């Protein structure tokens, strides 16, 4: 069985996902990034798009994210996002992320 590590996905409103995972696939402005256990310490900005998490149980969760940071240290992955929502599929997560980004832009316009 693959080694697992702790993953927390937090947004200002709530903790979106938290638990043990086998692999996390996130997007940074530079491209896709797959993180498994014992990844080197990393700090990166997050791009708008889907983030995939395969949990210890083998269950896959896809989350649409917009903005934020990802930190990897000591087998702890922390995703700090401005907006995040759990989606049902990869394609849907993409849409979710786009929608969140659009909502955000709207809120900025109002301000």
């Amino acid at each position, binding site marked *: 069985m693959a080694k697992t590590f702790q993953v927390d996905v*937090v947004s*200002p*409103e*709530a903790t979106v996902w938290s638990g043990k995972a086998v692999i996390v696939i996130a997007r940074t402005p530079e491209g896709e990034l797959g993180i498994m256990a014992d990844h080197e*310490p990393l*700090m990166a*900005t997050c791009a708008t798009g889907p983030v995939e998490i395969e949990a210890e149980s083998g269950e896959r969760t896809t989350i649409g994210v917009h903005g934020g940071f990802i930190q990897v240290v*000591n087998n702890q992955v922390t995703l700090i996002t401005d907006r995040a929502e759990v989606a049902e599929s990869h394609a849907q997560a993409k849409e979710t992320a786009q929608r969140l980004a659009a909502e955000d832009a709207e809120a900025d316009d*109002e301000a």
Partner: protein
Amino acid sequence: MASAQLRDTRRRIKSVEATKKITRAMELIAASRIPRAQARVHGSKPYTEKLIEVIENVGAADSGGSHKLLERRDPSRVGLLIVSSDRGLAGAYSSTIIRLAETRAADLEKEGKDVLIYAIGKKALSYFRYRGYHIEQAYLGVTDTPGYGNARALGNRVMEDYAVERIDALEAFYTKFESAMTQVPTHQELLPITPPDLEDDEKAVRVSYGFEPSPEEILNRLLPTYVEAIIFNMLLEASASEHNARRRAMKAATDNAEELIKSLTVQANRARQAEITTAIAEIVGGAEALVES
């Protein structure tokens, strides 16, 4: 036939009962909002905590480059961010925080500094406008259920003002929600950012991170996010406190109405009894007069 006094008292009872119904309804509405507001305060905590953790780590790894939001300059123009309420009927909630802010404003003016007010909520706006303070910006309609968008708009505004040196420092006044029983009016410095404690070496293990992009750039984006998160947290705490204050004020009003109804009922009964006694006395008197004749 009821006497004038009896009729009057009965009318008052009815009116107090109507008021009681209203205050009771407001109490229940406020009470129903507290758990949600409290849950949101709670839900936003992990985010802020993680953010602080990340900033500590980046700050430790950063080559010591300074950032505009961290720079301390001699303040001659100070912004005061005051979180009050849009509506009244919440007891001393707004006036407490406004008084705290005004004391500070007066102190600053005595030191010869300019005070700019960022008012959140109608109460702070009208209070400070009436007293001739310079209102830099007012935000209405956010205190009930503040969203992250509100915090971001506010954060962007104050950080921009700070960047162009329209303000040299920013202090916030809000009511911290400690528990359902205690809410504490709080005065907090927002800008320049006081870096989260870097002394805590045990926790801040100096790891050599891979950065993507550079540490400076990440810090550039982290710090504004941090300010937004703090403001968001403030708004949430204030909102929970406001609902709590309103519930308590309305509960007191309902209790008072109940008391008033009780004493008015006694008064009405007494008036009715007096009337009956008079009537009986009249009848007895009349009967006796008949017997005598």
